[in-house]
């Protein structure tokens, strides 16, 4: 496997292989906790921590885990760090804990995590594995944040709890309800797809002009 530099490794999760907008993984928290920008950031950072820490441990143990029991080992490791984050958030703020509810515990079922452990951390040394995992985690955070911002602005007329519009603004309640999550996700997926389409076209034209 060709080893890209650490920075590329980091960026790939943030942009080129963004877990939400490109790989479309981890949709459960994406739709459920993005009713506000703050929730989205907390959820994203919690996931980033679990991702980074579990990929580091998986990578350290990668040569001593037999193939037959690897999935069991990865899940136990991921579940451990989810428990760690669960206690840490309770200690930091109960309001955040209430707002995120069961979705903290459900990080363990987020396929981004098992996917990274299996596809990347198990085959790479600790440094690139952790860099890639943290890049992915921040990419996930960015995705959640972009959805959370739109839903909070339209659904509550606020951003980070600060009212943006006058009293005449009537909040679009649908945006903070589950369907709103699907609408906003679809909107961003269209934007990203359009971006990719345009840049692919341009690359083809540039290559055509050079040849």
């Amino acid at each position: 496997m060709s080893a890209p530099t650490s920075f590329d490794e980091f960026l790939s999760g943030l942009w080129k292989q963004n877990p939400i907008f490109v790989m479309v993984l981890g949709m459960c928290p994406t739709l459920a906790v993005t009713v506000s920008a703050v929730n989205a950031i907390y959820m994203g950072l919690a996931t980033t921590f679990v991702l980074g820490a579990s990929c580091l441990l998986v990578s350290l143990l990668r040569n001593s885990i037999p193939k037959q029991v690897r999935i069991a080992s990865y899940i136990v490791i991921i579940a451990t760090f989810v428990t760690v984050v669960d206690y840490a958030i309770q200690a930091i703020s109960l309001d955040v804990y209430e707002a995120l509810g069961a979705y903290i515990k459900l990080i363990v079922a987020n396929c981004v995590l098992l996917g990274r452990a299996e596809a990347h951390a198990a085959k790479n040394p600790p440094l690139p594995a952790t860099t890639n995992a943290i890049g992915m985690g921040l990419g996930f955070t960015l995705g959640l944040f972009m959805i959370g911002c739109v839903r909070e602005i339209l659904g509550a007329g606020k951003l980070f709890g600060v009212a943006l519009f006058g009293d005449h603004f009537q909040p679009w309640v649908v945006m903070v309800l589950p369907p709103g999550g699907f609408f906003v996700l679809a909107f961003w997926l269209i934007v990203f797809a359009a971006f990719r389409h345009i840049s692919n076209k341009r690359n083809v034209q540039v290559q055509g002009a050079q040849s």
Partner: protein
Amino acid sequence: MSDTPEINTPTFAMVRTLGLVAVICGVLIVGIYEVTLPAVNANKKLALERQVFKVLPTAKSVVPYFATANGIVSAEGQDLVPAGAVIFYAVYDAANKLAGIASEASSSGYADQVRILYAYDVDKQVITGIGVISMRETPGIGDKILTDQAFLKNFEALDVHLSDDLKSLANEVKTVKHGTKTSPWQIDAIAGATVTSKAVGRGINQSAQSLLPRLLPNLDKLTVKAQ
């Protein structure tokens, strides 16, 4: 990968690896639990006090108690609720005099459990305020129970006095259709949010029915804050 595992990995290797992973994870979990426990407990206490101070503005301190069939015991520092006991909070003012009782009521609403905290005035035997602990009701509809002034007026003096034998409430607390409230023990529902309004009424009725008959005979133990 440098050492590709053989197809037939010895059982011992698998057991050893799983054992190792389990030990590392176990140590991590126990460690973080021990480290965060004081902060988590302090947070929970703080969150509860904030709720209580909202429904009883004169409050300065809060002492948890259990109401059991045989009387009341302090619940300070106890995590486990004894079987059949109801937890409530004796609330004291700046002079350590009893300012009121706060207790939790919960019932299923439209989306999930609606958990509220209510304040009880021991002299007048009425409920004097409610606050929401947690709910997942529809934003803009069910959450009106927090903001609708006409609805909150129900809880300025909701009658929950006991019958003469002190075994149950003299009148069941009941949520009635919007605009049909006639008695002080009825709750006038919010038009359009009837399910949530009914959940509040049902929760208060259940909680008051089980708590107040145990609480009232023992009130003298609570009038001054136990040091």
